[in-house]
């Protein structure tokens, strides 16, 4: 995918939002030290929602390995969010998504948003909207016919975020301990 200007004025929805205080670009391996802790923050937050989402002891190595693989994988997208102005070279968030094949359904390629994380100071003001718009465009460019998002069922904040933007539940995943 090509570069994204921070002035990405996605028209739909938040018309009064000023240009977001972040800039998105494809993540590089050199970003791993910044992105790994953010991914871990996100997974640790998921622990709050369900004990079956307890983070493994080796989660940090896992995060590094998975991010590294995804950065190189043409069927995956990892974008790094950088601040603007004084925060220009600081990675303040990221988004990770996969292109997944749908064996039985059409359209046959699904863009799955797996992780979106932004440091608290870089939320609101239309930032989430902007990130969602950018990743959706990138997934579409890779052939996705639908976009989905995976997050803990109890995460009401994520639930509201996506519902407000036209998403609806299509698959449920239920779990119990063994």
């Amino acid at each position, binding site marked *: 995918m090509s570069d994204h200007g921070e002035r990405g004025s996605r028209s739909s929805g938040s018309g009064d939002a000023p240009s977001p205080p972040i800039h998105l670009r494809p993540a590089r391996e050199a970003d791993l030290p910044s992105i790994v802790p953010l991914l871990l923050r996100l997974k640790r*937050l998921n622990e709050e929602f369900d004990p079956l989402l307890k983070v493994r002891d080796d989660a940090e190595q896992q995060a590094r390995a998975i991010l590294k693989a995804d950065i190189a994988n043409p069927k995956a997208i990892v974008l790094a969010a950088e601040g603007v102005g004084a925060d220009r070279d600081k990675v303040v968030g990221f988004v990770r998504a996969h292109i997944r094949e749908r064996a039985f359904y059409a359209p046959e390629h699904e863009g799955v948003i797996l992780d979106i994380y932004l440091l608290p*100071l870089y939320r609101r003001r239309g930032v989430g909207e902007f990130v969602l718009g950018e990743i959706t465009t990138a997934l579409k460019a890779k052939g996705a016919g639908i976009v989905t998002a995976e997050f803990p069922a109890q995460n009401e*904040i994520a639930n509201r975020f996506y519902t407000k933007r036209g998403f609806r539940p299509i698959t449920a995943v239920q779990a119990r301990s063994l």
Partner: protein
Amino acid sequence: MTQGSPSRVDPDRAARRKARRGAAAAARSEDRTDLLGERAIELSRYFGGKIETVPKVPVRSLEDFALWYTPGVAAVSRAIRADPERSFDLTGRWNTIAIVTDGSRVLGLGDIGPQAALPVMEGKALLFKVLGGVDAIPIPIQVGSADAFIATVEAMAPAFGGINLEDIASPKCFGILEELSKRLSIPVWHDDQLGTAAATVAGLLNALELTHRSVRTARTVLLGAGAANLVTARLLLALGHPARQLTLVDQKGVLHAEREDLDELELHNPWKYRIALATNGGNRTGDLAAALEGADVLVAASTPRPGTVRPEHVRAMAKDPVVFALANPLPEIWPEVARAAGAAVVATGRSDFPNQVNNSLIFPAVFRGVLDARARSIPDEVVLAAARELARGAARKGLSADHLLPTMEEPEVFPRIAAAVGDTAVRLGIARRRLSHDEFLARARTLMGRPARLVRALARARLTPPMPRTLPRRRRTR
């Protein structure tokens, strides 16, 4: 850091000696607390609780009940049915509030449940009556969730002119106050948030004045991020305190926007989360010591343990710092120790030291004011008006390091606070009754003065028995 004035004693040694004396005083105060406790149990049994309802109308014979009750009362009900607002004119609603608790955080006792909270709520009702002339009904409720709490209070609101929430655990108390304030058209107050914060802000305004500082330029550290300090932070910001010079510190250190637990806070304590984003640690990270480096003001509302704030913390602050150590019953640092370390002004939550930051300076007058204005809510502007007037009350008698706030022995200030509250409610357009300043003041003086006369009259008539003299210790050994 060296001390300003040369002193023959080593300040550290003096501080240690004072700390030892403080500890001895604390031990004595614990003994005293035990004695008071025994006496309180005996008296509670003797008097059978602390409050009762008393008629406010003449009852010459049972025939009068044709007016006070059926059939006459039906017309009163019909009138209110036609215009519900008339319930403020035709019943005691104008002066009656509910003191509602779930007993989840009572005094320093913790989650003791609604029954055990009742004596505290009765005591609060007594304070409301004696200090504010307000009829307050203690209502501890057994509920399983914040939603059930909210629904219960909403259901009882038609009987009351205001709601005082009491002793509810943080952060649940924030959501309950916020939601009830939204749903009800009568004022809702949570004393542990608003009362404490208003009294604190009043003291701070005077402390800043006294040390030639301004709230617009001060650098302030709040230790503890519970009910009181989160609201103190909000009020300071509303007063123009620069957000980037305001640092909150809790057990995990400086509360800033990139702290690891922020996401968890967003879920479970959005109020603390918001303050974390607004202040972002006053551009600091680290621990209390890092936060206090060069700070003008410390407001500790945290752990009731002297030594939570240490002399070296105070010494690291700016020259002539302001130190409020508000934990009860034991302050985070003894006033003598803070002064020996250079504090120019010290306040605590205790009545046995100068400068007591005390909710009772605020809540009776605030309710007097909002009830007299028949206000629909209590926005922060009203809280700040009360704080400012309280601060002015002390200034009127002359500010000094030992006189930052009025004491309960300066009652003339309270009707003034009530009037300031009433004026603000009128100005904000939330008053059902728009009286003039002088009318609010006169009314508050009358209504706040009446209970003392009532209590005296009841005692004179022997309707309240005199205090029994028996010392509890002696009685027990008999």
